[in-house]
Every structure is written in C-alpha cells, then in structure tokens.
C-alpha cells in the first residue's frame, strides 16, 4: 500500500533571507549538499518567478552569491547539486560581475564529468564566456558536438548558436563538426523508448509518442539551425547543406521542417532554384509518415511561392487537416487558408468553402472566427447576413474583430446595410480597444468615400441613419483620436446631405463646449463645412476659446470665407503627397525668414516626384491595409518606403539649395542616382549626382566624405574654369556637398578637380558623363 503526502513549506520567500542563508551555507566547510540543494532551488525559484523588470539582486549581491556558489564546485560526485549549481549560474550570469571565475571549473566538468551533468555544464559555459575567453572553449565544443550522446551534442550546438553573438570567430571553426552532425543519428537518454507503465489516457499516450518521435535525433535540428547561421551569407554553402540533408535522409521531424524552411529562404533569394525545392514539397505533401506540422509547412511554402501546380493537392491536404482531430491542426490550417484563400480559383475555393462552413459553428472561437473571415474573403457571401449574425452571437476578442473588419471592408460596399450595422455595434460597444475603433472608423470613411466616387449610390436616408448613429456615439467616447475622426466624418459628409443638416451642427457644437482642445480643433474644422449656419458660432469661438489652435482655426476659416475665392490646395494628389507638404513647409519657412510678406508662390509639384518610385510609395502606403492580406511582402514595404523617402527628401533639400545658388534653371526633369567617382579606400570618397533641368542646364552635386582620421583644413577645389571653392574644414567622417553648374566645368571629356588641403594635394580626374 502506498500513500502520498505533501507538506506545505511555510518558509519565507524573502529574497534577502534566502540571500543570507545562501551565503552562510555555501561558505561552510564542509558543505551540506542537501541543504545547499534546497537553498539553490529556492534561489532559482526566486529569480525565475520574478516579474519585475528590475533584477532580483543588485550586481554586488549577485556577485557575492556567485562567488559563494562557485565554492560548491568542491563538492564532487553529487550530480543533482551540480545541476542546480549550473541552473543558478546560468541565471546569475546576467546579473553578476566577474562570472569568468567559474570558467575553469565548468570546463573541467565538460571534459570529465558524466553525461548527466555535461549538457548543463555546456549550457552554463557559454553564459560565462566573453569574446576574449571564447576561443578556449573551441576544442570542448567541438568534441561535445560530435559526441554520440544526443543531449550533449544538442546542448553544444544550441550553446554554440548563442555563442555566435559573443564570438562568431570561434563558432566559424565549428562548421565541420556541425555539418558532421546534420545527418547523424544520436540517441537521447532523456526519454525512455517505452511508454512508462502508468495509467495514461489516450491523449497522453499520443502526446508522449509524439514527443518521442519529435525528440529523437534532435541534434539534427539543432545542427541545421547552427549550420544555417554559419553559412547564411554563403549561397553555395547553403545549397550544399540542403542537398546533403534532404528531408528523406534526416529523420527528426523538426529537422525536416527546418529543411523546408531553409529551402524557402533560398528560393526567396533566387527564384530559379524552385526546381530544387519541388521534390521536397512533393515528398512532404504525399509522405504518409509526415507529421501534420510538416504538411502544414509545405502548404504554407507552396502558397507563399504561389506555385500553382500543387494548389489542388494543397487544398486536399488542408481539408484533411481541417478535419483532423487535433484542435491545433485545425486552427493552423484554417488560419493558413484565411490568409491565402484569395489565391485559389473559384472551383478550389468552393471545394474548401464547404468544409470551412462546418467550422463556423466550432466550439473554438478562434477557429470559427477564422472560418467566417475565410468565407467572407472567398466571396461566397450569399449568406453573409447569417454569418454576421453568427459573429454577433460570438463573443470574440478585439484582435479577431480587427481581422474580421479587415475582410469586411472589402465587402462593405456590396452589403452596406448589414455590415454597417455590425460596425456601428462594435463602435458603440463599451469595451473595445482604440485600435479596433479606429479600424471601424477607417471602414466607415471608406464607405463614404467610395459612395462619393461612385456618385452617391447609397440612399440618403441610409446615410442619415449612419450619421445619426455616429452623432449618438460622439456623445460618449473615450478615445480622442477616434472622436475627432468621427467628427471629421460628420463634417465632411453631414454637410453634403441635402435635407436639414443642423442636427449635425448641433452635435458637433456640443463637443466644443464639452471636450478637450484637440477635439475642439477638429470640431471647428468640421463646423467650417457648414458655411451658412455656423458663421456666428465660429466668430464666437474665435473670440472666446481658451486654446490657441482652436481660435486660430476658427479665425482662418472666417478669414478664408471673406476672401471668398482662395484656391486652397485641394488636389488629392497633392494632399496625399508628403514630399509636397515638406516642400511647402520649406517654402513657408523661407517666406517667413525673408520677412517680405507680399507674395507667396505655392510650390509646383514637380513631375518627377509624381511619376517614378515616389508615387509607388505613396500608393503602397494607402493600400497598406488591403495589401497586407494579399501577400506577405509588406515586411519589405516599410523599408522601401524609408529609402524612397530619404531619396526624395535628399532631392527636395538639394533642389532648394540649388535654387538659392542659381536662378532661372526652370523645372527639374531628372535626378540621377549617386555615382561613385572614387573607390572606397581613397582618402576622400567622392560621389556625384546629376540634376537635369528643362532649361537644358545641369547641376552636379558632389558629395565629399573625409575618410582620414584627422581634420583637413582649407580644402580647395579647383576646376578648369572654376572659381575656387574652399571648404574651411572637413572633420573625419564628415560629409559635405558642393553644387556646381555643369557649364562652369569644362566641356571636355575629363574634369580635373584639384583638392588642395593645408599639407597635401590631390588631383582627381573624372570622366564626364
């Protein structure tokens, strides 16, 4: 007969008490291993469970703890104590100073200790190494990686992966050993191969078997990860790596999946390599032994690569996963479908749609939400009303609501009534995050703009209903930005309603009396849209409001009304163009500086900004939300955005400078990219870009960077017919720009620019181009 008892420990968990206990116990001679083990476990619990952002111990305390723990190394042959020591050292290594003192002791354990504590030792070793001591670990890591014990090998591989950040030099020397491990079969002694004879229910047995299969030869997965990181800049090496271990020769499931992912990375870099990945995908889709997550990964890759020939089998496989017993497979599959369903042609979409419909009523809300989203996207929306009713009945989280609203926004114009009802409900609901409510407002704005573009197809009474609901909403809204955007809608579209619009004015004007200055400002702008009713209100505001901005806006509105026909900057193309706005700002600054308030020219919009990459960027920005669903490329979009922005900013700034120097150049027609005139190793790096104007004149912008480690004074630049240009000083790594009209340079084939500094002289000759 057996009994099980549990005694609750009623000891204090105060960090200082444990700290003191640790110091005294660990410094005893001889130490009491059992007591130390308990203390270490308490200490570990304390550190691990700490939720505050501050470390549990101050550096000084952590250091004295660390030194007393290091004294426990004298206690040989006690594996469980040593394992605890390693666990705690790993945690302390981030808080304590002088952690290198444990290096030699840990290394000794890796060399000689038994296989139980070796993995722990290896993992701790990496935490105490720094870039100067990393090299001493090379031999140990090498021998551990090729160890026939899976746990030791895995520990060494993962540790080396972490070591990359500390010393990639050391890790690069491990490449041969790593490659050796990629397809070797090592057994783990952690998991028994037989199911333990305990009473387990079916699910637990399944989980256990899964773990066993997945963990077998785990070092294959870890070595792949490390090998990829070591070779990631070497395309040929990566290809070789993938070829060496195609998924059939490797038998760890995680490793197989990793190979699929790595091949995707290669194909993304070079689409010609797609032939290489196809047999793998075929294997993964048809393989009977493959795990669900491998099938899923293969489907994802095919959809990402848009590899059409496999679509039908992908659909078949995903249908299989949807009907799988496991909730996680179902979820993953339906999420994948919802992301990529727009790729499927009608018949495939229909095929998968019928299976998805079953999921709408799934007990799992996440699954049913994704199912609804997918159905909305597939456009099989005959029963959209019932779908939305299901949505209303489901109590779904904000994140999912946002996903759904995204897909609804594409349908809103086809089913305005139903969807708007749903949107207004979400907007008015008391819970709901700022992001969600903004999304709803986005959607509504989209509805109204589309309505305008399509010449008012929505009935007026419907619009009045929507706007009146919004009027109710602004009475009670906690988010300033949402509120001011709704006020914008009311002003912009309420003023276009042909019947009496004074009801909107009343609601907006109420805000003036009740809300903060940001909302008051937008309310003023909105009121300005109702010119006939609101003049007296605005006059009142312009005199009495406490906030500058609010008064200013009211005054400007009144002033422009008096002028009657000021052509405001109305063009949509201009309004959406950040470059133009920047230029306008620059002009205005100049205008204010000059102090001559008589004339002000609005800047023209140079064509160059409108036609090439810049417009793409703007367009991309507007389509952001929509595009996000269609392809995964949005990760890059941000980057393109910023480089394009930088370039346009450069062009803009330079153009202004040029205008100050030379007048009568006319309109800018073309700007070339920077061309390097010198190589990177020279004392000065000189780059040049060319600005062409429609007066057939050209200005060159020379960018000169001083790469010397001292400041050069009086850099004197002389050209053939050029006046001298002197840069009084150029600090190390400083960059300066010189603008020159082409006609000032000689028209010969070469330009000779002479750089004369205080103590040396350098002549550059360039091809004119």
């Amino acid at each position: 007969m057996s009994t099980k008892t549990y005694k609750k420990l009623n000891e204090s968990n105060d960090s200082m008490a444990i700290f003191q206990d640790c110091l005294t116990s660990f410094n005893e001679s001889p130490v009491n291993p059992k007591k130390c083990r308990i203390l270490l476990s308490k200490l570990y619990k304390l550190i691990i469970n700490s939720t505050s952002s501050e470390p549990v111990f101050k550096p000084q305390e952590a250091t004295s703890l660390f030194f007393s723990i290091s004294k426990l190394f004298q206690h040989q042959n006690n594996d469980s104590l040593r394992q605890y020591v390693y666990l705690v050292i790993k945690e302390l290594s981030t808080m304590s100073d002088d952690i290198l003192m444990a290096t030699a002791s840990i290394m000794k354990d890796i060399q000689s200790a038994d296989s139980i504590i070796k993995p722990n030792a290896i993992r701790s070793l990496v935490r105490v190494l720094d870039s100067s001591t990393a090299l001493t670990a090379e031999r140990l890591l090498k021998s551990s990686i090729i160890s026939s014990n899976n746990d030791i090998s895995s520990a060494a591989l993962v540790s080396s992966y972490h070591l990359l950040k500390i010393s990639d030099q050391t890790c690069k020397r491990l490449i041969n050993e790593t490659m050796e491990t990629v397809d070797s079969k090592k057994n783990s002694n952690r998991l028994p191969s037989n199911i333990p004879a305990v009473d387990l229910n079916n699910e637990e047995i399944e989980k256990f078997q899964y773990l066993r299969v997945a963990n077998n030869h785990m070092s294959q997965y870890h070595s792949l990860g490390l090998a990829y990181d070591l070779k990631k800049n070497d395309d040929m090496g990566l290809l070789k790596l993938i070829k060496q271990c195609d998924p059939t020769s490797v038998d760890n499931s995680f490793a197989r999946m990793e190979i699929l992912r790595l091949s995707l990375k290669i194909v993304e870099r070079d689409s010609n390599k797609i032939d290489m990945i196809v047999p793998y995908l075929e294997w993964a889709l048809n393989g009977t032994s493959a795990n669900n997550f491998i099938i899923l990964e293969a489907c994802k890759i095919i959809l990402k690569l848009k590899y059409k020939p496999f679509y039908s089998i992908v659909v078949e496989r995903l249908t299989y996963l949807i009907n799988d017993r496991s909730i996680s497979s179902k979820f993953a599959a339906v999420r994948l479908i919802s992301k990529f369903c727009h790729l499927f042609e009608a018949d495939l979409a229909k095929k998968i749609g019928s299976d998805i419909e079953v999921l709408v009523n799934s007990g799992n809300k996440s699954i049913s939400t994704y199912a609804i989203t997918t159905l909305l996207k597939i456009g099989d929306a005959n029963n959209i009303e019932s779908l939305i009713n299901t949505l209303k009945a489901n109590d779904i989280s904000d994140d999912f609501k946002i996903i759904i609203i995204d897909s609804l926004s594409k349908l809103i114009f086809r089913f305005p009534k139903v969807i708007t009802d749903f949107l207004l409900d979400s907007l008015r609901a008391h819970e709901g995050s700022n992001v969600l409510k903004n999304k709803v407002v986005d959607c509504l704005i989209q509805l109204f703009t589309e309505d305008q573009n399509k010449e008012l197809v929505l009935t007026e009474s419907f619009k009045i209903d929507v706007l009146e609901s919004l009027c109710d909403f602004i009475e009670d809204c906690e988010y300033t930005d949402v509120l001011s955007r709704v006020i914008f809608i009311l002003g912009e579209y309420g003023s276009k309603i042909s019947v009496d619009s004074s009801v909107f004015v009343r609601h907006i004007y109420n805000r003036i009396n009740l809300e903060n200055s940001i909302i008051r400002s937008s309310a003023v702008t909105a009121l300005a849209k109702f010119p006939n009713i609101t003049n007296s209100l605005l006059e009142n505001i312009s005199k009495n409001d406490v906030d500058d901005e609010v008064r200013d806006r009211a005054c400007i509105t009144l002033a422009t009304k008096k002028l009657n026909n000021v052509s405001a900057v109305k063009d949509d193309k201009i309004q959406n163009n950040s470059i133009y706005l920047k230029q306008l700002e620059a002009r205005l600054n100049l205008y204010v500086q000059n102090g001559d308030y008589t004339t002000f020219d609005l800047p023209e919009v140079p064509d160059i900004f409108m036609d090439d990459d810049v417009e793409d960027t703007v367009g991309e920005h507007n389509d952001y939300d929509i595009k996000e669903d269609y392809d995964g490329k949005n990760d890059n979009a941000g980057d393109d955005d910023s480089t394009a922005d930088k370039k346009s900013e450069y062009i803009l700034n330079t153009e202004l400078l040029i205008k100050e120097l030379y007048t009568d150049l006319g309109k800018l027609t073309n700007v070339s990219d920077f061309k390097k005139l010198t190589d990177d190793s020279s004392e000065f790096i000189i780059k040049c870009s060319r600005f062409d104007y429609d007066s057939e004149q050209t200005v060159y912008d020379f960018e000169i960077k001083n790469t010397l480690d001292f400041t050069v004074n009086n850099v004197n630049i002389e050209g053939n017919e050029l006046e001298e240009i002197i840069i009084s000083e150029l600090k190390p790594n400083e960059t300066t720009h010189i603008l020159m009209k082409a006609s000032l340079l000689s028209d010969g084939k070469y330009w000779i620019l002479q750089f004369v500094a205080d103590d040396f002289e350098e002549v550059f000759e360039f091809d004119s181009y």
Partner: protein
Amino acid sequence: MGQLFSSMFDRLFNINKDFRILILGLDGAGKTSILYRLQIGDIVTTKPTIGFNVETINYKNIKLNVWDLGGQTSIRPYWRCYYTNTQGIIFVIDSTDTERLQLASTELRTMLKEEELKDACLLVLCNKQDLQNAQSIDKINETLQLYDLKDRNWSILGCSAKTGDGINEGLDWLIDVVKENNTE
C-alpha cells in the same frame, strides 16, 4: 572522566575534519600542475586557468580541499573571495622567472596582510627546480624575506611538479603544522 572523553572526541573530530588549502602564485608558476601532481601523482598538460580548479585529495587519511586559483593579473583580485576558512596556503614561485620574482613577493605580502588568512600556514614552493636556470632557494628567499614573518608557520622548499621532487615533503610539513594549529 567526562572531560577526558570530550577532549578525545575533539581530537578525533579535528583530525577527521577537512582542511582547506589554497594554491596561489603568479601565472605560469605551475599551480595547476602541482594540484594534479598531488591528486593523480602524475604530470598533466594544462592551459592557463581562467577561474579556479578545486579537488578533494585524500592524503594520509586526511581529506584536503585544495583550491588552485588562476594566477593571471585579471584573476588575482578574486583570490580574496576564497580566503575564508583557509588553513594552509601553498604559494608557488617559478624559480626560473627572476624578472617577476619581485612581483611575486609583492603579491605574497599583500595576501598575507589579509585578516582572514592570519592563522593560515604558509608553504612556499619554488617550482621548476629541475631546470638549469632555476635559482636556489636561498637566492629566492633573499627577495621574499620570509625571515620577517614571526607570527606564522612558514616553510620554503624547492620542488619540481614535472619530476614530483619535493612536493610530498612540502605537503607533509604543511599538514603537520595545520593539524597542530587546529588541535591546540
């Protein structure tokens, strides 16, 4: 009668107690080699110790915890973290390194000033005596000036970790005095 028993127990207890010995000295003096000469009785290949090595050695029925602390300049400041409860110090000197003998002497003196080590016995081992250019013990002691130490048991001996000469003799002396110190 009771008193006699208790004093006998005391004696027994003290003799069975672990002793804690530190091996200190400049880098490259041969501390790690001496530690493993004591433990396995043979010469091992070593590399500079980053941190410390600690071994338990059973020597003539006495359990010794021997700590070999790294001697590099960067590690020397941490020696003091391991001083508590130390009964014996083995200070190792490279007999061929005349240039740094003065530095070794300074380090030795700094260490001896520590409060925690005031009762510890000192054994100075002049290692590498098997080499041609090794200096004699007398010559070394001219720099170390150990004769000044009046309130501490000390001894200076020549030895070679490579051949094993002199190591056991040194340890025998150290254990004798440590035992004596702790039974008083």
